[in-house]
């Protein structure tokens, strides 16, 4: 089976995230094995539980949730990149529970297991 890792480095505020999520959903529908999604740089903002996006705009986090209900999905967050942007896994938890707190070591792991890597 085709194995895929997606690395997301762009923020969730724009239409770029619609494309990334659409790509992943399409891959899953086609039976691609998604080894994992890794969020890095501004991509970590996808996991920000406190972000308020106007209700008439695309809610990336809801879409991740929907995908995760339907498929087995590992969403890894680079915690260093997240902390730089004011997100924390500690007391004032600001990371949505859909996401797994990881580090760059996880990217090494994902790379070793996948056939293809795509950056969005």
């Amino acid at each position, binding site marked *: 089976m085709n194995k895929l890792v997606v690395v997301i480095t762009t923020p969730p505020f724009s*239409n770029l995230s619609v494309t990334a999520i*659409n*790509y992943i959903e399409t891959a899953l529908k086609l039976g691609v094995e998604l080894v994992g999604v890794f969020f890095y740089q501004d991509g970590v903002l996808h996991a920000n539980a406190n972000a308020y996006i106007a209700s008439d705009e695309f809610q990336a986090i809801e879409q991740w949730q929907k995908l995760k209900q339907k498929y087995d999905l590992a969403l890894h967050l680079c915690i260093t990149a997240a902390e730089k942007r004011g997100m924390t896994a500690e007391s004032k938890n600001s990371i949505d529970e859909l996401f797994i707190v990881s580090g760059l070591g996880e990217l090494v792991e994902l790379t070793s297991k996948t056939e293809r890597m795509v950056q969005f």
Partner: protein
Amino acid sequence: MTTLHIIRQSAYTTTDFEQCIQSLCMNDIIVFIDDGCYNLQHNLISTIDNSKKIQLNVMKKHALARGIIIDESIINPIEMTALVALTFSNDRVITWQ
């Protein structure tokens, strides 16, 4: 051994597409998505070496949303399923963003 090149930005704003063109090998595939769709009329397209037989595609939905007309004699309009298929029918992917 071919590469899928995903172009996400307008060449009128950044030089990413220009760098992509410099990195093409024989039979590579280009797909314009997101703001990459604005490049369909950019004269950089004519600088692509014909002998390399590069296939040009555009995410149809992304181009139409931007009011861009697709000249199908030059560019092949595709859907997201095709982009996923191209991910695996080529040997690697570079996203120019």
